[in-house]
């Protein structure tokens, strides 16, 4: 037995020596290389955390596929660092006074990667393909308003008109859908077309190679309309394991990797890697099933909010890389408002509210998905925090699909009490599908939230075109939802990304990412 212990000790020593980084703990400045050192034949290596399934922007449903599509395709509009919609394939656009007719004027200097000219027909073809019920596109409902599809037509070779059945503010963001070529897909079964594995787009890079499960390559589009890209090639390497991905970044084999809170300090101390932090349009929450008698009383939900020490959660779960959340919007969204009830940590108040509601002996189960370390930690901490106010919490960890099956079942009343999940917010503040009472039980209003005022405002927010008027509407919505507290809002995580020092030309760190202007990104020799 003694010999085993010695051997284990020796082995551990060997491996631990391998782990200790070379640099000491330093909070170094970000150093970006100058453009003069750019390598004209430079190749950038991105890591992808999952398999790429399909390279057709109207069909793909996973972020991995979208990441690659973003280099190959482009849309009529795109977003800038401030998350504003700006021209891309369309030079400009105008909206009629009644908000129902949108006219887009397209660039005339754009060619597909196979040298065929890009025209209004391609745009109309793309939206009609999405609207075709035979095409398995989940984006179809983006272009259907109250059951009626938006009508797209080409006014001439470079003008597209969209006729909406009624005014619909979120349409502007949705006009940025990537365009697919009519000349390669017309008359084909888009679901199974060969195109989906060898795509042709109008974006800064041309599809070159896809070795399934291993890597993909795209190469420079010399005729790109926003200017010739500085990189000769981008390689996407598929690395499913997050730890292996960090090791590959450290070894210099990939140029970018997301950094989880646990590795933040170590990665920050490493030489040769710039660590960027920025806010993201994401929030994590504890959803409370209002259809369940335990949470029908607003005071119970508010009590749980008072019993939640959000600061402690952010410190323990995210190691401080995030901030407490109070509303179903994010501080970086233009529609965010701070004027909401924040329920500061106050266990005594929580106890009092529970007593008033007659729920002193509250017991409930939180569902969460297996494999999400942050949510697993948060659930255990919440369990402890709620214990302090006399609330007993049980945890049930489920596989992702199994969890969704329970909260997303299309029949009410749903059979669960509470769950932890997160929402990625869209660029438009419209939150109809999450909060409107019509979205329960079929829809994403998982917890049966019903408030006539919010219902009315959500509808108004969609048809109001004026941005400042919309901002007021959403401020009112957030305020009402925070008052009703159907979710206990937990935190906004900060995105942390490590990038090899040889990469330059990045955009300003922000929720839109660092590679917003991909054609400007370069690597040094």
């Amino acid at each position, binding site marked *: 037995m003694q*010999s*085993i212990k010695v*051997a284990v000790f020796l*082995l551990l020593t*060997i*491996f631990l020596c*391998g*782990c200790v980084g070379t640099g000491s703990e330093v909070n170094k400045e970000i150093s970006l290389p100058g453009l003069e050192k750019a390598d004209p034949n430079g*190749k950038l*290596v991105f890591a992808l955390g999952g*398999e790429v*399934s*399909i390279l057709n922007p109207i069909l793909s*449903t*996973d972020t991995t596929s979208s990441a690659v599509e973003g280099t190959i395709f482009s849309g009529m509009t795109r977003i800038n660092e401030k998350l504003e919609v700006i021209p891309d394939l369309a030079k400009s656009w105008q909206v009629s006074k009644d908000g129902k007719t949108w006219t887009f004027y397209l660039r005339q200097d754009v060619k597909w990667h196979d040298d065929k000219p890009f025209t209004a027909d391609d745009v109309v073809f793309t939206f009609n393909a999405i609207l075709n*019920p*035979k095409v*398995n*596109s*989940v*984006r*179809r*409902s983006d272009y*259907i308003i109250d059951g009626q599809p938006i009508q797209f037509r080409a006014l001439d070779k470079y003008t597209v008109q969209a006729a909406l059945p009624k005014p619909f503010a979120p349409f502007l963001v949705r006009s940025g859908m990537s365009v697919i070529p009519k000349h390669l897909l017309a008359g084909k079964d888009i*679901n*199974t077309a060969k195109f*989906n*594995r060898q795509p042709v787009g109008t974006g800064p890079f041309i599809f070159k190679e896809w*070795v*399934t*499960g*291993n*890597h993909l*390559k795209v190469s420079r589009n010399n005729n790109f309309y926003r200017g010739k890209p500085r990189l000769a090639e981008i*390689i996407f*390497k*598929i*690395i*499913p*394991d997050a*730890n*292996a991905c960090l*090791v*590959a970044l*450290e*070894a210099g*084999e990939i140029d970018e990797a997301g950094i989880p809170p646990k590795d933040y300090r170590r990665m920050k101390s490493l030489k040769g890697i710039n660590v960027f932090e920025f806010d993201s349009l994401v929030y994590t929450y504890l959803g409370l099933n209002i259809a369940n008698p335990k949470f029908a009383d607003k005071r119970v939900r508010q009590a749980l909010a008072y019993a939640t020490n959000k600061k402690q959660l952010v410190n323990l779960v995210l190691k401080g890389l995030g901030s407490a959340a109070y509303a179903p919007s994010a501080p970086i969204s233009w529609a965010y408002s701070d004027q909401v009830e924040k329920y500061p940590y106050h266990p005594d108040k929580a106890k009092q509210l529970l007593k008033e509601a007659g729920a002193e002996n509250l017991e409930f189960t939180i569902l969460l998905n297996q494999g999400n370390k942050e949510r697993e930690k948060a659930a255990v901490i919440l369990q402890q925090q709620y214990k302090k106010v006399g609330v007993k919490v049980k945890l049930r960890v489920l*596989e*992702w*699909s*199994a969890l*969704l099956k329970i909260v*997303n079942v299309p029949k009410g009343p749903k059979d669960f009490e509470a769950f932890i999940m997160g*929402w990625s917010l*869209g660029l438009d503040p419209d*939150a109809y*599908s999450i909060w409107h009472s019509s979205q329960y039980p*079929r*829809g*994403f209003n998982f917890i049966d939230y019903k408030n006539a005022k919010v219902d009315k405002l959500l509808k108004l927010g969609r048809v109001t075109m004026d941005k400042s008027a919309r901002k007021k509407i959403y401020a009112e919505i957030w305020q009402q939802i925070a008052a009703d507290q159907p979710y206990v809002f937990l935190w906004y995580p900060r995105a942390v990304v490590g990038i090899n020092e040889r990469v330059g030309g990045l955009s300003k760190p922000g929720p839109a990412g660092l590679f917003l202007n991909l054609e400007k990104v370069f690597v040094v020799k």
Partner: protein
Amino acid sequence: MRTFVIRRLLQLIPLLLGVSLISFFVMHLAPGDPTALFTDPSIDPIELARIRANWGLDQPVIIQYFYWLGNVLRGNFGTSYLTGRPVLAEVIERLPATLLLMIPAYLITLLITIPLGVFSAIKKGSWFDNVVTVLTFIGMAMPSFWLGLMLMLLFSVQLGWLPTVGMRDVLAGNQGPVASFIDLIKHMILPLTTMTILSLAGLSRYQRAAMLEVMDQDYIRTARAKGLPERTVIFKHALRNALIPIVTIMGLSLPGLFGGAFIIETIFAWPGMGRLGVLAIFQRNYPLIMGIVVFSALLIMLGNLLADIGYALVDPRIRYGKK
């Protein structure tokens, strides 16, 4: 022997049908369906119902099964929901990478474990036996993902000798055949080492136990009594008998070669079958799951058949086809 093999091959047909029927139903028992993963608040649930109907998922499971079976009998395993490509193509595409990793791992393990187990048994209680025992227990106790990451940190980050992940150097342009072969070997070293260290442990223990048991048999005593040299006793009389349990285990692990090794493939970003299968299950990609199930069932059955034939080769007491 030939009738035995033919009979066993014919038995495959009802077995495969049974396997496919049961797995089809079990698969549909798992909660969720392929569209459940599209939880994007901007997607209208009506669209998901439409897509499910396009995939035929609105039909009763039994109808779906016969529809699937009908297509399979015509050689069509369907298309993967997420990629829109034929299932068979997706499965076969993963084979080379899988076998490239699994076969060498299998052979290296065999080459190391058999002598290791045999010598441990012969030298039972010696320092050699003790060291092997300790090391194999350590090997057994280490989680593969941990060992893989540690090897990577040591050999790739600290020493810079070997690449971390993947199958090839993605930055290198068109290499010659020799250069790309060397590149491939470099990428194989770490995953192979990890796999071998982990599987060494179990197998060498089996071999040691089997050898110890045989060494106690009467015929070994007889062989020694005849005055045969110790070499002949061990390698001709003992080893051949001690191989029988190993042949069983190796035969049973044959189908694993095609199934790949999920954890190793994930850590080392190796594009093998294991990752494909687990992902298909998470995504509830029914046609792909069924394709993999039928394919692996077939391989398991063939693996068992090979193991049975293997017995006959090593063990003179077992002969098939004669009654």
